[in-house]
Every structure is written in structure tokens, then in C-alpha cells.
């Protein structure tokens, strides 16, 4: 028995060495790029690992580069250094909470913008116990507090250049890291940013294996969905004042629909940005869609039907297959934007459950809720 | 008959503009009122129109106090012409004249004969279809007077009706007003600066100073007397 164990161990070791480098963040290599994500990469120079953020915001002309230093003596070598592992950090976005939760790094989170939008129960508890501070508006967080409370890094996101507002943080030695997972278009690309968090919390291996599992499950389940004969038609969006607002083409959601083997009715409309559709057109093209992913805040179908006389005639409404992104009861947060970002596999499973309920009979929806009558 | 017995005319009680205004204005008579600029002629007229409240005294029209009249009743008794504010330029002359109907709530209470009499007398026939903005100042002045007259009131009060008129126009208007007073038995009170004093028939001349409203009698030196009164202020 023992010898078998040894043999197995040797084989595993050998296979470990032969693992292709795109599945493991091997910091021995000089350059490493993620498989799906486009917004970040790692580099090693002179024994120091660097994190590169390629587009801190869309259209920016420069890249952020951070030296990740674990030893005190190396801190002076690089100009923008982050001491890892991070023990005290703050963020302006709830999606970052999702990543941190997967890596079990909730306790090191010390402040967040708009605490009422957090979905995670653990974080909510910490907020209630005053262990996490409210930072205020996401574009104008409480910079003074962060400086005076030894925050080691501030995770931010931005759609434009507002870096000037954060120079004061940088001057005080608090690096501002622009996490750009939200601009990735592939669901797995967004999840892959967990590796950035992994590096910053010195939990690369954990991050790698989590991502590996996510990728595996995602691809596997997608394959299964694609074997189904039918591809149910799905529409998304909601009605305001007679105009139907639908998400744009080629977006993140479109990939999800494809991988869940769902047919998004308007996938061929050639418009960029989100669509403002006339209700007539919606009715004409989508009245036979069997699923509606609604984006309003209604929790039941009744009030939806009052919005417009044509809505009750939609097939999805008549078949009672209207869904909404689930909100947890105690907060205004949407789980889909938090955990959903880092767990696209589970989101996919939800979508497959909605479109092909026969595949995962016992699965309970986590990110979407059905609107009841 | 309009009777005024105003002790004080003021904007601000502490500084009265004019005092001691006592006069009687009767039908069939024409009253020319002279006075320096700013002495209070327009204010006096506005008081009669109910547009100015600052006075201490009494004003009665045919025995009834002015303040007892409703706006509409007063509009049927007294007609006024002031140097107006800017007016909507797209009025056609004949439309503007029709405003005179308003106190009567009817569309055509103006006597047709009287209407043509006024229009002819003021040479407005050719202008009836023109817009106000196309008229010269003098022509507009005549239109205003016409509207005022078409209100069919017994008492007509005009604030500087001869302003903007050339010599010929002024003569004709003066003549027409005198004719109106005589033939239609109207009472016209007007303010003016023109010095051709006219005492014939039932024409009266008054001078408004800060201390009184004086009537002048017909005599050789009435003009000098008037100038004296005016300069005294």
C-alpha cells in the first residue's frame, strides 16, 4: 500500500510539473497572461512580481503597474508597491466583495462604498457590527478615513478618468487598484480576475484551483445544454414609458445565453449600446419568446402587466416564465452583481435551469427569481 | 357732473404731490388742464380712473362716490386715454377699436353712426385694416382717442392727446373734440402744453399747481397769468 501511495505521489508530482502553464499562475515565468481576461497580466523582473492592469478605464492611455512586495526590505525598490498579503483593504464595488468572499478574505475588508448594496450575509454582519466602515458615494469615497486608518490598498473601478481625485490617496501611500473585471465581455474572463485577488492576498494557489473548477463546470454544463434539441427564445429588458430598454449586443449576457443554449431574440440587431425599442417592435418580434429576463424591480407579474396593454399578450408572461435578478431581502444588493461575477458557472446553471429545466432537476435558482402571479 | 374735492394727492403720505384740488366738470364742457411736467396731471387722471389710490378727499360722479362704482360700471361712465405702455403690435386698427365694446359685454354695442362719425372725424378710414405697428405715433394717438370715444361714455379724460401730433393734426383733433363736446353733449377733460388758449363757447382753462387747481378766466393777460402760475412752482 505504501509503495502505491509513493508511486501515486511521484506521478502526481510529475504531472504537476508537466501542467501547462496557462492553468497555473507560475511566477517562475517572466510573463503570464490570463486565458480569458484581457485586462490584466503578471510579470516578474529582478525577483519582484508585478501586477499589470492594462486598461484602468476604457480609453485610458496607460497601464497600471504594481510591484507586489512581501518582504519589508524590498518596499523601497519599486515606486508603486503593494505590500502583500493585504491585511486591510477597502473597495468601491460590491463585485470585489464577491471575489474576496470566494477567497475567504472578508475579514480583511475594512471599508466599502454604499454598504446597503452588499448581498453577502457575512459582510452584512460585519457591517452591522461596525467592523466595516461606510465609504460613501463610489465616486467620492471617504479618502481621509482610508488614509488615517492604515488602509493598504483601495480597490476601485471607473468608467472614465477620474484618477485626479485619488492622487491624494496615492500620495499618502495608499495604492488605488483599478479592477477592470466589469469591462470583460466573457463570463469566464470576469471570473478570472480572482487571480488578481489571489495574488494580492497571497492565495494564488487557492485562486487558481477555484478558477479551474469554475471553468471546468462552466464548460461542462454548457456542453450539456448544447446537446438539447431546443433552444428556447429569450428576451430581456423592461418597459419605461412605452419604450423597451434592452441590453446591448455582444455583451456579457449574450455570451451567457449562448452558452446556456438560449436564443436571444435580438442578437442580430446591429446596434451598439443598449437598445431603446418601440413596444410595437417588441411585440412583433418577441411575442413568442418563452422566457423573459426582466430588469425592473417588480417582484410579481401583476404590476408588470399594468405597464402596457401588450405585455399580458407576451408568451413569456402567459407561460409564467418571467424572471428577475434576485435581491436578498435584507439589503438592496443584487447577488448577481456580487457573487454572480465570480461564479459564472452558477449563473450559467441558473440559466440552464430556466431554459432547460430537465437537466438539473434539483438545482435551486440562486441569482434569478421567478416573478409569481 | 364730476366733482372732485381732493385735499391731498400723494404717493407717499409724508410728501403730497398736490393739494387743494377742487373742481366741477360738467357735460357739454371742455376742460384744458395745464401744468408743469410731473406736477400730477397724470396722477390725477389715474385717480379718477381708480388706478391710483393715494389721495385724501372725495370724488363723486353724478353724486355717487367713485369707489362705489364697480370696474365695469366706471368703464361705462368714464373713458380714459393715457400715454400707453407698449402694446401688442399685431392689432389691426379696427380690432383695436372694437376693444371699446368690452365694458358692454356685447360685440357690437357701438352705435354704427357714432362709429363712422368718430372714424371720419379723426381721418382713420384709410387705416382701418392696418396693423398698429405700421402706424406713426400720431396715427396711433388718434386710434387710441377713437377707441376711447367709442366707449360711449359721457365723460372722457385724455392725458396729453396732442402729443406726437403735427400742427395740422393737432388743430383738427382739437376742433373735433370741441365739436364732440358741443354736439354730443360730452364732458372732455384733457391735459396739454399747447398755448393757444381757447375760451370760446364752453371751453375752460385750468392750471394745476402743487397747491391748487385754478381756473383761468378770459381776459387779455390770461396767457401771462398762466405762465406766472406755471413758473411759481
Amino acid at each position: 500500500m505504501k509503495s502505491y501511495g509513493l508511486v501515486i505521489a511521484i506521478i502526481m508530482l510529475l504531472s504537476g510539473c508537466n501542467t501547462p502553464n496557462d492553468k497555473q499562475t507560475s511566477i517562475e515565468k517572466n510573463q503570464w497572461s490570463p486565458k480569458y481576461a484581457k485586462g490584466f497580466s503578471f510579470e516578474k523582473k529582478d525577483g519582484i512580481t508585478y501586477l499589470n492592469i492594462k486598461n484602468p478605464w476604457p480609453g485610458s492611455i496607460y497601464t497600471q503597474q504594481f510591484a507586489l512586495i512581501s518582504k519589508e526590505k524590498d518596499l523601497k525598490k519599486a515606486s508603486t508597491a503593494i505590500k502583500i498579503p493585504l491585511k486591510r483593504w477597502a473597495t468601491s464595488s460590491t463585485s470585489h466583495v464577491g471575489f474576496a468572499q470566494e477567497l475567504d478574505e472578508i475579514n480583511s475588508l475594512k471599508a466599502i462604498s454604499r454598504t446597503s448594496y452588499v448581498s453577502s450575509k457575512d459582510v452584512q454582519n460585519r457591517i452591522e457590527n461596525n467592523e466595516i466602515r461606510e465609504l460613501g458615494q463610489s465616486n467620492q469615497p471617504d479618502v481621509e478615513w482610508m488614509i488615517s486608518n492604515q488602509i493598504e490598498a483601495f480597490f476601485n473601478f471607473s468608467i472614465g478618468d477620474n484618477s485626479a481625485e485619488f492622487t491624494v490617496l496615492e500620495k499618502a501611500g495608499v495604492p488605488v487598484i483599478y479592477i477592470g473585471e466589469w469591462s470583460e465581455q466573457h463570463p469566464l474572463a470576469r471570473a478570472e480576475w480572482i487571480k488578481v485577488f489571489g495574488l494580492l492576498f497571497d492565495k494564488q494557489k487557492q485562486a487558481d484551483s477555484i478558477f479551474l473548477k469554475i471553468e471546468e463546470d462552466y464548460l461542462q454544463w454548457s456542453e450539456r445544454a448544447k446537446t438539447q434539441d431546443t433552444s428556447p427564445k429569450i428576451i430581456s429588458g423592461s418597459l419605461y414609458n412605452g419604450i423597451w430598454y434592452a441590453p446591448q449586443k455582444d455583451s456579457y449576457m449574450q455570451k451567457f445565453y449562448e452558452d446556456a443554449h438560449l436564443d436571444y431574440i435580438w442578437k442580430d440587431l446591429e446596434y451598439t449600446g443598449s437598445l431603446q425599442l418601440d413596444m410595437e417592435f417588441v411585440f412583433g418580434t418577441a411575442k413568442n419568446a418563452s422566457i423573459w429576463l426582466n430588469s425592473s424591480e417588480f417582484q410579481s407579474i401583476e404590476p408588470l402587466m399594468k405597464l402596457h396593454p401588450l405585455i399580458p399578450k407576451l408568451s413569456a408572461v402567459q407561460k409564467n416564465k418571467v424572471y428577475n435578478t434576485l435581491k436578498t431581502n435584507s439589503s438592496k444588493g443584487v447577488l448577481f452583481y456580487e457573487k454572480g461575477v465570480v461564479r459564472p458557472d452558477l449563473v450559467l446553471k441558473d440559466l440552464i435551469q430556466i431554459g432547460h429545466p430537465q437537466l438539473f432537476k434539483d438545482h435551486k435558482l440562486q441569482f434569478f427569481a421567478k416573478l409569481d402571479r | 357732473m364730476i366733482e372732485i374735492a381732493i385735499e391731498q394727492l400723494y404717493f407717499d403720505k409724508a410728501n403730497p404731490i398736490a393739494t387743494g384740488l377742487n373742481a366741477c366738470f360738467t357735460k357739454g364742457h371742455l376742460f384744458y388742464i395745464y401744468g408743469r411736467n410731473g406736477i400730477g396731471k397724470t396722477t390725477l387722471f389715474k385717480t379718477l380712473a381708480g388706478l391710483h389710490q393715494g389721495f385724501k378727499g372725495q370724488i363723486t360722479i353724478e353724486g355717487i362716490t367713485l369707489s362705489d362704482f364697480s370696474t365695469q360700471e366706471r368703464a361705462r361712465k368714464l373713458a380714459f386715454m393715457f400715454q400707453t405702455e407698449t402694446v401688442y403690435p399685431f392689432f389691426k386698427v379696427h380690432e383695436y377699436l372694437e376693444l371699446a365694446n368690452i365694458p358692454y359685454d356685447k360685440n357690437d354695442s357701438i352705435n354704427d353712426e357714432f362709429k363712422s362719425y368718430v372714424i371720419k372725424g379723426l381721418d382713420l378710414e384709410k387705416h382701418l385694416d392696418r396693423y398698429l405697428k405700421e402706424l406713426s405715433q400720431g396715427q396711433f394717438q388718434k386710434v387710441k382717442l377713437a377707441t376711447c370715444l367709442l366707449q360711449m361714455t359721457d365723460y372722457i379724460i385724455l392725458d396729453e392727446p396732442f402729443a406726437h401730433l403735427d400742427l395740422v393734426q393737432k388743430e383738427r383733433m382739437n376742433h373735433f373734440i370741441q365739436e364732440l363736446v358741443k354736439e354730443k353733449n360730452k364732458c372732455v377733460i384733457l391735459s396739454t402744453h399747447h398755448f393757444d388758449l381757447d375760451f370760446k363757447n364752453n371751453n375752460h382753462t385750468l392750471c394745476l399747481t402743487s397747491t391748487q387747481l385754478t381756473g383761468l378766466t378770459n381776459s387779455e393777460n390770461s396767457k401771462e397769468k398762466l405762465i406766472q402760475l406755471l413758473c411759481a412752482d
Partner: protein
Amino acid sequence: MSIKTSHTRLFLYLILGLIVLFCTNVFLGSIHISIEEFFRGLYDASSTNHLIIHAVRIPKALSSILIGIGLGLAGFLMQILFRNPLSGPYVLGVTTGGSLGAALFILGSALFSFGFIHPKFGIPLFSSLGSLAVLAMILVVYKRIKDPMTLLITGILFSSISGAVISLLAYFSSAERLREFVFWSYGSTHLMNTYELFLLALSCVLCFVFALKNAKPLEAFLAGDVMAKTLGVDVDKIRFQIIIFTGLTVGVLTAFAGPIAFVGLVVPHISRQILKTSNVRLQLISVSLIGSLFVLACDVVATLPGSALSLPINAVTSIIGAPILLFIVIKTKRFIF
């Protein structure tokens, strides 16, 4: 009042134009329907287009007409009231009050909880309350200071205050709510059910009847305050009534259609250019007809027939209205009233 044959002819053309435009508006939409299918859709309840024509297009066309009449009348009355060509229905600040009410409902749910009131009911309700509040405040101010210039300034002040509060609410609200409010402020000719259309029609009729009954005093207004008073017009009372009727009409319009720009400002000017008369009765009819024509036309453009997309009505009325106003100003060579 003499209606000349030229006026009658003009009105006939306008009415004809209205009928044609109404039919065009109902015929065109984002879905292409052939003439044959259209008539079938009109009468045959089982036809697929029946619902679209009756539930979507006809109410939309009707509400466009009513919005045009209401805003045209309101703008016309405001321009008389203030004797100012730049006055529109919004100059009293009533619309911003309506926006504030809508903002309170849409954005304010972060701060206050309204239980669950459906937006179709809640938005018009709150918007009307907002308009009423501003209207009441303006009337109170007017009772004390009867000067139109003060009224104008008061309107601007209330508008500014409302605007500031809206900004505050927007600042603290979520992205979704903000988006909803922005969409509301685009204005809409859609989704008027029978009840809403009826209320809209009622306020237009009341406003029209009021103006018709007071046509002569309103004309006197044009001649100036002093002239009007000497003609026996109770200037203060009429002004008070104008404020009430205009305020109510604008309040109802804003509640159901959102704020719609430029119509009330430009329609009276177009009417004055076409019908060069000061006769208020004639202008009332003309303004109503031109108003409905204008909004119907803008609505046809906003629908972008044949395309899936549609434009917000506010953008179209501004883009079409502003150049027309500019053209009129240049043509008359000065911005006279």
C-alpha cells in the same frame, strides 16, 4: 367678431391637415403594416394588428393631439399673461413642481418607503401633487404682490428650488432609479389609457372654455394693464384665473406625459405668423389646431417608422421647434411680441 373667408379657409386646411396627420400617425409605426392589413386590423378583432392599432397607436395619436392642444393653449395664455414672447407653459414653475413630485416618487424610495404603489398610478399622483403645491405657492405670492414681473421671478425661483431638490435626490439614488427618472423626463405620448385621455381632454376643454369666455378681456390684456383696467376688466381676477387654468392644464399634462419641451413656446408663435390677428377667439382655435398638428408630426418622427428604435418625444419637439422659432424670429427681424 368677423370671421373672414380667409380665416375659414385656413381653418379648413388645418383641420384637413389634422385628419391626414392623424391617419398617418396611426398608419405608421415600427412594424410595417400594409394598407390592406391595416383596414383588417381596424375592424377585425382577431387580426394580429388589431391590438397594436387599438391599444397602442390610436391612444398614442389621441394623446399627441391632446398634449398639443393643452400645451398650445397654456403657452398662448402665458404669453398673454406676461406679454412676453419667451413665456411658455413652464414659466410658472408648475412643470418643475411636477418633475419634483415624480422625482420624489421614483428617486425618493431610497429615503422614504411608499409601500407598493404601482408607478402607473404613483408617478401621475405625485407629479400632480408637486404641480399643485407649486401652483398654490404661486397663487399665495400673487395674492400679496400683484405684479406679473414678480410672478415671473417667483416661477423661476420655484423652478430652481425644485431643480436643486431633484439633484439632491438624484445624487443619493441608485443607478436604476436614476435611469427611470431620466426616462420619465424624456416625455411620452404612450400609454394613455381611456381614463388618462379623459382627464387630459377635460383639462383642455376647461382651459379652452375659460379662454373663450374671456376672449375680450384677454384681448384687452394685450393692450396693456392700464388700458384693460380703464375698459372695465378686472385685471387681477383674470390673471388669477389664467394662472389657475394654465397651472391645472400643465399639471395634468406633466403628470401623464412628463415634461414636453418647446411646444407651448413655439406653437403660439407659429399661430401668430399664420393668423395675423389679435382676435383671441380665432387664435384659440388656431393654436389648438396647430398644437395638435405639431405634436402629431413630432410623434411620427419620434416613432421612426419601420425601425425598431424610437426617439424620446422631448428631443424631437426641441430639435424641430427651436429652428422654427429661430426662423420666425429672423423673418420678423426682431423678437417683438
